């Protein structure tokens, strides 16, 4: 057994807030050996990032280590000052952040930024630093590194920015690299490329890595040891196989169950006791539509061109039956959001037609569609539950608004009843209705968004990445909710997502988009199990999976 590179001993971190001291980390003990990759997983607020920031001494001024030690090569990091600290940062340990574009200085050429990091720790000339920076760009596999040296972050894609960030982090060959959600917000294929690169570089240079992530599958794919954090504590630490095969702690069990895998079904996502009542609904067979029923939605040769640019969407056709769920997947820039917005009649298509329930609605200007009587039949749930609720509306107002505008209800008992009914259907406790969005949790906000969308009893619900901003356990509950709504109320779902595992579970059919055109479509399970095009295969293979062993299936 090799020497411990980093050992964290009973670490406590507190933040002073307006409501007094809040303990974010309460007694974390952790060890990392030289060259190993450790996964630190947990949901938001579990303290995993704070642990990382405390180790690299990057906590904001409000945060303080109140107890415990962080020993790096036998030296207590928490007690370092001034130059000693600076010699550690970058040279001995460095960090990669979430949201790579924001993590780079927007008005400084990337070559200079890499050179800055090199010049801090090495006494070499500027030209030599520039040459090294160029080499690093080679190392992180950036195409045409010579010209990219003078590029600014806004000229690069998110994945490219993260490579530059990696180049900065490894510029002085640190012994420890802490990657805080390095691929969150990137496409699955980009995620795979970036993570593979990171793992290769770490292995080649013998760097120890701590991978902080909320994605169990990602941690399982790249780490040999995973520590699970919950509310500031480490609840379980094991190899991925042991962790997913036979999780010991109740929280780990819940987390493992909630993470969608290649084989999981929606009903698997929560543990036994939370599942009550759901099974009965799922088992009820859906009534078959009579043959010859006209489709609910028919989209014909839809196209969208934004001014002078190339087509964002071209030649897009699809049909949906009532109560059917269809997934729309693709990488960012594939046109899936644009398509969903055209179908929702929030933006105008350049060409083509949309027929809803036998009526052509493609030519009604998006500006005027709110007056159409079909407006309440097509509703939308937006990606970010924080941004899509009016901060000055209470939950009640949010849900009541479409009823007042579209259903012609007046304020009064009937309205109150309808709002309560919607809240109950999405599982939102009624005592939360007078609250404002900032007083609700992410999951509760997502429920308000869904309740608002179903308030007018729509027949088609368009969901644009409704769970992308949610923790897996909350995502599990929201997915079940959506599936139940579909089965109970026969609402058709058009589900836009980049998360293929989720689409596979929720949707009967899936459409794969790329560069604004349909690449492949078909019945979900068949499409994912046996993709016909290379592109779909690449997408499917890029999803990080962990194998849920038979033991786990039995435990559930």
């Amino acid at each position: 057994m090799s020497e411990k590179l980093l050992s964290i001993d009973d670490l406590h971190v507190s933040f002073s807030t307006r409501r007094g001291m809040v303990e974010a980390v309460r007694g974390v003990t952790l060890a990392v050996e030289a060259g190993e990759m450790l996964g630190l997983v947990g949901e938001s607020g579990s303290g995993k990032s704070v642990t990382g920031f405390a180790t690299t001494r990057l906590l904001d001024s409000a945060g303080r280590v109140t107890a415990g030690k962080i020993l790096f090569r036998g030296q207590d990091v928490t007690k370092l000052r001034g130059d000693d600290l600076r010699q550690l940062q970058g040279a001995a340990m460095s960090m990669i952040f979430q949201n790579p574009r924001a993590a780079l200085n927007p008005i400084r050429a990337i070559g200079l930024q890499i050179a800055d990091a090199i010049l801090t720790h090495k006494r070499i000339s500027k030209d030599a630093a520039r040459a090294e920076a160029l080499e690093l760009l080679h190392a992180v596999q950036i195409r045409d590194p010579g010209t990219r040296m003078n590029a600014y972050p806004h000229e690069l894609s998110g994945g490219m920015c993260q490579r530059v960030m990696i180049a900065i982090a490894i510029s002085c060959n640190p012994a420890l690299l802490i990657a805080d959600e390095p691929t969150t917000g990137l496409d699955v294929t980009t995620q795979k490329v970036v993570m593979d690169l990171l793992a290769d570089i770490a292995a080649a240079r013998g760097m120890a890595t701590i991978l902080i992530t909320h994605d169990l599958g990602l941690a399982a794919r790249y780490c040999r040891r995973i520590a699970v954090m919950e509310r500031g504590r480490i609840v379980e630490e094991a190899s991925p196989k042991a962790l997913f095969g036979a999780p010991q702690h109740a929280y780990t069990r819940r987390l493992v169950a909630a993470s969608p895998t290649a084989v999981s079904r929606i009903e698997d996502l929560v543990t036994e006791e939370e599942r009550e009542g759901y099974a009965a609904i799922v088992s009820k067979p859906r009534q078959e539509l009579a043959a010859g029923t006209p489709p609910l939605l028919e989209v014909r040769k839809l196209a969208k061109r934004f001014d002078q640019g190339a087509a964002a969407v071209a030649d897009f056709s699809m049909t949906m039956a009532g109560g059917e769920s269809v997934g729309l997947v693709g990488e960012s820039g594939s046109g899936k959001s644009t398509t969903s917005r055209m179908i929702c009649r929030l933006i105008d298509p350049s060409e083509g037609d949309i027929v809803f329930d036998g009526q052509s609605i493609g030519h009604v200007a998006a500006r005027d569609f709110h007056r159409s009587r079909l407006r309440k039949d097509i509703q939308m749930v937006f990606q970010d539950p924080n941004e899509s609720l009016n901060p000055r509306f209470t939950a009640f107002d949010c849900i009541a608004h479409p009823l007042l505008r579209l259903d012609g209800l007046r304020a009064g008992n009937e309205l109150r009843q309808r709002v309560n009914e919607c809240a109950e259907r999405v599982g939102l406790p009624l005592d939360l209705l007078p609250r404002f969005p900032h007083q609700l949790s992410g999951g509760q906000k997502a429920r308000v968004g869904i309740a608002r969308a179903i308030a007018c009893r729509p027949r088609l619900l368009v969901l644009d990445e409704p769970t992308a901003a949610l923790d897996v356990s909350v995502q599990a509950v929201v997915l079940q909710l959506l599936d139940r709504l579909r089965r109970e109320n026969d609402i058709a779902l058009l589900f836009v997502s980049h998360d293929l595992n989720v689409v596979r579970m929720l949707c009967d059919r899936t459409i794969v988009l790329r560069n604004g055109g349909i690449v492949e479509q078909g019945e979900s399970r068949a499409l994912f199990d046996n993709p016909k095009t290379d592109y779909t295969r690449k997408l499917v293979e890029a999803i990080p999976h962990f194998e849920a062993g038979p033991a786990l299936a039995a435990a559930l």
Partner: protein
Amino acid sequence: MVRAGRRLLSSLPALFGVLVFTFLLMRVLPGDPAVFFASGPNAGKEEIEQIRKQMGLNKSVPEQLVFYLSDIGHGNLGRSMMTGQPVLKDLRERLPASLELTFTALLIALIAAVPLGVLAALRPGSLVDHGVRMFCALGVCVPTFVSGLLLIYVFYYLLGLAPDPTGRIDVFTSLPPQRTGFLSIDFLLAGDIDGWWAACKQLILPAVSMALFVIAPLARITRASMLVSLGSDFVRTARSVGLSWRKVVITYALRNAILPVITIAGIVFSTMLGANVLVEKVFSWPGVASYALDALLSSDYAPVQGFVLLMASVFVLVNLVVDICYGIADPRVSIE
């Protein structure tokens, strides 16, 4: 360059609007220039009528406007009744004085405000922060003519350090050949160091009293944008690789934080140029603003209209310069 030209062209309608508006405004203001410029208070009705006819004031307002606009088209801003000179000549003589004063004041303000704002942002809530806030509050509370008089009282009357506040240069100094119109630069070009020093001494008090007034907005905006920039992800990145304190604060945080300061500095500059009439009066500075005020008080239409047109053009130019500076400072922006 083509884009800059297009920008200038697109501002022409606004300039035209300003022209017409000022013209009409001057006509509806009470006061008859003919009465003012008649030979004396007991000038007879015929005499006044005679002057009105001479000045074209007997014609209808639209007719007057057409004459006025065609004159402007020929580059003729009219003649001042006060000085008896063409307005264009007056403005050309006085604008450099105003510009020199305003530029110096802005420079002093920036040199003081940016470090103050940065200091305050580095330690929010500290004694330094509160000190800066108080200094800024004082600067805004005290009107420029009061701070100007105070400065004169202390540095001229009590300490005798400053020369008497009577214009750009004392009467005994011989003027340098005029090149830029900025006395301090002209003296330098002529190699006259004594003259240069004399001009600078005259300049410093009015410039400081103007600067005091605008330090507050500049320092506050610097502090605010510096706080944002210090809390941003890229500063965290810079700290994570152990960059030196200077590099983090100056190269990473301040260069990003300076962008909104450029915009505010542009606005402050245009405001100062027109609004520094108080300082010009207190220090008998022969600038355009005091010229326009005198003209306004004596219902002298042409100089006021010329002044407004000048200010509007300066405003357009300053905005263009700000945008160009912004484009250089921030690679994400291109001048549209």
